[in-house]
């Protein structure tokens, strides 16, 4: 993590700006937290002051037997101290609780904003950013940005405490106050130094912890390979090396703590000793009272720890700034799919036209990698078209363009003669459905996964869901699930096999009665028999649907009215399967590989 770097000179300014933003976002609770903390600060200073006063006015004369101190006076002194404590403790509760409320409110606000950005930004943007990074932007980085709000009200309260304490000290004795008021800021400064020196060590330990975890994940995920090749010993050595480095990093953290913690302990102690050393001759000379010594000693003792809060805030700032940089990168990312006003028809199969469509991925080096070039294609309404090509020929990209997951770099994609870019928001999804290669299952019920919100809008009922499941050959296994449509699946629910997930994804598309259905190798994990049944069902009841199917299997391809053969991003041949098999040797080589292999083996026998 870059926050290991020494803080840039602008860190303070940037950090203050981020804190100001947080305060603007949550002005009320933050103000209350600061007020609570101010009560706490004033109360703590008052405790030191009151102890001095009580010592001078009540305890000292009572013990020395000088003056008239009644039991009532003593009880009153106790009541004063107890009263201050109760108010101060209330301030502590308010400070801690409200600081947490502020911090978590900010976290929640920015998590919502970041995910809104994810849902708004185009898929091309998603593809440019690793999944892990996006997840940590929404989680760890948001947390790092607002963590500073935990100690912030505390430290503001400490400033209040410092002001009151300074007044109490100066009122007691200016010379002794000078010592106290030198020691307290020194503690704050040392705390900042501590945080600055510690932060890279902690970051390094964190990084090594992640590395240990990476090695364990990789090694356990690849356990079959490790076992199959007998590499357990080497794997253990690899893991042990990381574990040992983590150990050393943790010991380095311990060493740094060993230096600074005792130093921070010693500073107020040395300060108090100085106050006593200087104080004795002053008391003897009558320039100060024992009560003044008590006031300053107690203030030093009571404030030695809280004063560090100022250091925590300053020490936290580099993390705040880095976290905000990453979060704002997402929030400031521009670009979203522009929409027009056009409506697509509600009924009947869709006609599809592609004119000179080209598409390129932007690689990590910022270069364009052409995926599709000059694809021109027309698909008759109601027909079934198979897209065939070797791995990496651009089939999936083409499938995505047809339902406007992404926009082409060149050319246009038209449905019923309407450029998809002109269709109103949500319009493409009502007309066209894509079943992607990897079926994505939400952590939700079967019904929720199929309807994806249409049930809540009353557009589809359970009958429609069952009908779609039937068409997708998924009704059997769903009926066998413990709670039927209400069974939770996905991340934390019952696990489904690859084939079952695919069929669920197909049902999700079918329940929408799409006018254009795009299947991107969506039946690869389904048995041939089941696949045939699905495709037959589609053809049987799909007079109102145009189907584009990406496939390898000959059984699938042979059901299509027309085959489009892609090679390295270009359409190299079109025609019926039968024609292409005869006319195009490359096509024949691809789809007939197994059969030819079998034939040749048979011939050799």
């Amino acid at each position: 993590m870059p926050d290991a770097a020494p803080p840039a000179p602008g860190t303070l300014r940037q950090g203050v700006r981020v804190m100001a933003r947080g305060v603007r976002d949550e002005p009320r609770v933050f103000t209350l937290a600061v007020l609570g903390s101010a009560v706490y600060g004033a109360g703590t200073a008052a405790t030191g002051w009151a102890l001095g006063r009580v010592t001078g006015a009540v305890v000292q004369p009572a013990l020395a037997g000088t003056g008239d101190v009644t039991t009532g006076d003593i009880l009153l002194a106790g009541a004063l101290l107890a009263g201050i404590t109760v108010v101060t403790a209330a301030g502590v509760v308010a400070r801690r609780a409200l600081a947490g409320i502020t911090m978590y409110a900010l976290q929640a606000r920015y998590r919502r904003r970041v995910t809104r950005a994810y849902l708004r930004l185009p898929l091309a943007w998603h593809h440019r950013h690793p999944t892990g990074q996006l997840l940590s932007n929404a989680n760890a980085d948001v947390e790092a940005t607002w963590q500073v709000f935990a100690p912030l009200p505390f430290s503001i309260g400490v400033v209040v405490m410092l002001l009151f304490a300074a007044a109490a000290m100066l009122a007691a004795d200016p010379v002794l106050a000078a010592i106290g008021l030198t020691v307290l800021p020194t503690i704050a400064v040392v705390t900042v130094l501590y945080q600055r020196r510690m932060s890279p060590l902690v970051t390094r330990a964190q990084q090594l912890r992640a590395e240990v975890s990476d090695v364990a994940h990789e090694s356990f995920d690849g356990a079959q390979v490790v076992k199959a090749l007998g590499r357990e010993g080497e794997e253990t050595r690899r893991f042990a090396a990381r574990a040992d480095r983590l150990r050393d990093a943790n010991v380095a953290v311990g060493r740094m703590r060993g230096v600074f913690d005792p130093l921070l302990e010693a500073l107020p102690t040395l300060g108090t000793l100085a106050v006593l050393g200087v104080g004795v001759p002053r008391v003897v000379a009558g320039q100060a009272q024992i009560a003044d010594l008590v006031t300053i000693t107690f203030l030093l003792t009571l404030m030695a720890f809280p004063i560090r809060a100022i250091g925590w805030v300053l020490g936290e700032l580099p993390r705040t700034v880095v976290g905000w940089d990453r979060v704002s990168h997402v929030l400031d990312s521009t670009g979203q799919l522009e929409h027009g006003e056009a409506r697509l028809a509600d009924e009947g199969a869709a006609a599809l036209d592609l004119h000179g469509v080209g598409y390129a991925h932007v690689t990590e080096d910022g270069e364009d990698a052409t995926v599709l070039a000059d694809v021109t294609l027309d698909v008759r309404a109601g027909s079934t078209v198979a897209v065939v090509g070797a791995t990496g020929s651009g089939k999936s990209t083409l499938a995505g363009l047809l339902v406007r997951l992404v926009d082409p770099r060149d050319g246009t994609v038209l449905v019923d003669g309407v450029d998809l870019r002109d269709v109103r928001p949500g319009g493409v999804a009502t007309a066209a459905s894509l079943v992607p290669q990897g079926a994505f299952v939400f952590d939700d019920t079967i019904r929720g996964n199929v309807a994806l919100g249409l049930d809540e809008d009353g557009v589809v009922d359970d009958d429609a869901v069952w009908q779609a499941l039937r068409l997708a050959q998924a009704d059997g296994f769903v009926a066998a699930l413990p709670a039927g449509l209400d069974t939770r699946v996905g991340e934390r629910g019952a696990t489904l096999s690859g084939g079952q997930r695919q069929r669920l994804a197909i049902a999700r598309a079918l329940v929408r009665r799409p006018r254009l259905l795009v299947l991107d190798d969506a039946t690869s994990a389904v048995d041939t028999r089941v696949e045939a049944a699905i495709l037959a069902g589609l053809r049987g009841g799909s007079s109102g649907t145009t189907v584009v199917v990406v496939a390898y299997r000959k059984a699938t391809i042979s059901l299509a009215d027309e085959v489009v053969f892609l090679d390295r991003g270009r359409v190299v041949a079109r025609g019926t399967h039968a024609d292409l098999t005869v006319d195009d040797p490359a096509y024949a080589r691809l789809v007939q590989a197994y059969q030819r292999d079998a034939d040749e083996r048979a011939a050799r026998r």
Partner: protein
Amino acid sequence: MSAATRPAAEPAGGPTGSAAPGIGQAEQPGMWATLRRGLQLSPEMLVGIRVTLALAVVTALGRVIVPLAVQQTVDLLETSRAAGADPSTVRVGWLGVAAVGAVLVTGLCAYVVNVRLFRATESGLASLRTRAFRHVHDLAVLTQNTERRGSLVSRVTSDVDTISQFVQFGGLLLVVSTAQLMVATVVMATISWQLTVLAWICFLPLFAAARPMQRVVSAAYGRVRERVGDMLAAVSESVVGADTIRAYAAEERTQRRVDAAVEDHRRDAVRAQVTVALTFSSGFLVSGLVVAAVVVVGTLLGVGGGIGLGDLLAFLLLVQLFTQPVQVGTEVLNELQNAIAGWRRVMAVLDTPADVADPGERGQVLPRGEITVAFEGVAYAYPGGPPVLRDVDLEIPPRTRVAVVGETGSGKTTLAKLLTRMMDPTTGRVRLDGVDLREVRFASLRERVVMVPQEGFLFDTTLAENIRYGRPAATDDDVELALVELGLADWAGGLPHRLRTPVGQRGESLSAGERQLVALARAYLADPDLLVLDEATSAVDPATEVRLQRALDGVTAGRTSVAVAHRLSTAEAADLVVVVDAGRIVEQGTHASLVGAGGVYSRLHAAWAAQQRTP
């Protein structure tokens, strides 16, 4: 660092952390038993512990310097004032020197305690981690069930981290606080036993309440952890499922779900925060009240002449030493409990018998060369599940190419895993050259038998390193040659940096088909006597698969191979076809003898052939 700056939700898997079925956890040893076992497992932690603890007590002495100095100073001033004389400056000077000296000595001790404690515990934990890691690789559960892997990873990462975190924060605090309380109490008792009793009576309820409060706090943190999990799951849907969400215009619905999870997390995190604020301030409140009580009672006692002003002031400062321990007691207990739970989970792994362990010295080393395989009455059932394979008897003579066929879920892959000792049969035995697999030393077994699994797993390094994983001693030329012999040289040459192309995490920079090619080359380079292929070419395109299959036919000629196949052309080329159906071997023989026999194989083959003949 204070409790105030630490995150409210501990990131590590706490008591609610995922349990891994298949890993022994029936008995839940108590806290002390766990500690004892834990320290036995990591003896490094106890190295020099006596010295460390003694130094910690010395460190705690540093905390009473100020109270004692105040006592001496004030007494000096009071007595000299009473006597009407000036206090001796020599005495003040010596007191000052002694106090500063004590500050330096105790500070130095604190440094040494920190370093010693960290060094001892971190060494112990590092070796514990490594030991658990090695042990996990000997557990069948690792390859049996992919869903449990995540929880196994946490045994060697976050579970150990909770122990480490406890030692770094709560543990150190616990040691220092205990010493501090002891030292403070002793000094307090020398001043006034009555006031000492008073202070302890006030603090005792708090110490007693620490445990119940810790339970409340721990439950609150547990809920927060669950909410964090839910929230991460919801957020990850918006990232991982972006394509599907876009395709179905499900943005608003997804946002609603994310918003709900984020709000649930916020609400429970705030609850936990308020709970902690209340427990924390109870310590603050009681300390303050004790000060007030000591002032009142001490003054009343002092009027009788028992206590001087210096004594009383020192006492008030000593009471402050109770504040921190009672304030953070709940947090420390909470960390302790997380650490114990983590320790317990690591031990559960170590206590799970290594079911597929290397017999080591006792095992046999089989000479290389021709190999015979025999399954004798083999059955296998996953723990708690029905048998997936039973009554398997099979003899594979040397130099035989075997094809195992059957429908999805029939038990083919289990057969392959038993043959390579990824797991051991529930009953019966698998023999290699007449020796039970369990008796064969790993080094010998892995040299002779190598499996290419279906999923083509790659490590996050270069192409060459991944292939070399099969034979670490292989040179670049050897790797190159293997690729040429498999007909993959053109493919490798077409990659951006050829052999030095990084393959990415889990090989994700390559396609699924390409990963299988690498896995195949890796096994081929290992040059085993028996090659086991588990649908090793299922994800490559048909043309490539056929090419690869032919290359394999060439290289496996003359050696023993077992191929689990989904394409029946593999069976046609095999010397022996083994047909598995519903967990049993139902047919064995050559393709020619089985194809017309009217059994399962005839049916499978007919269906496959029909599909291939589709015009």
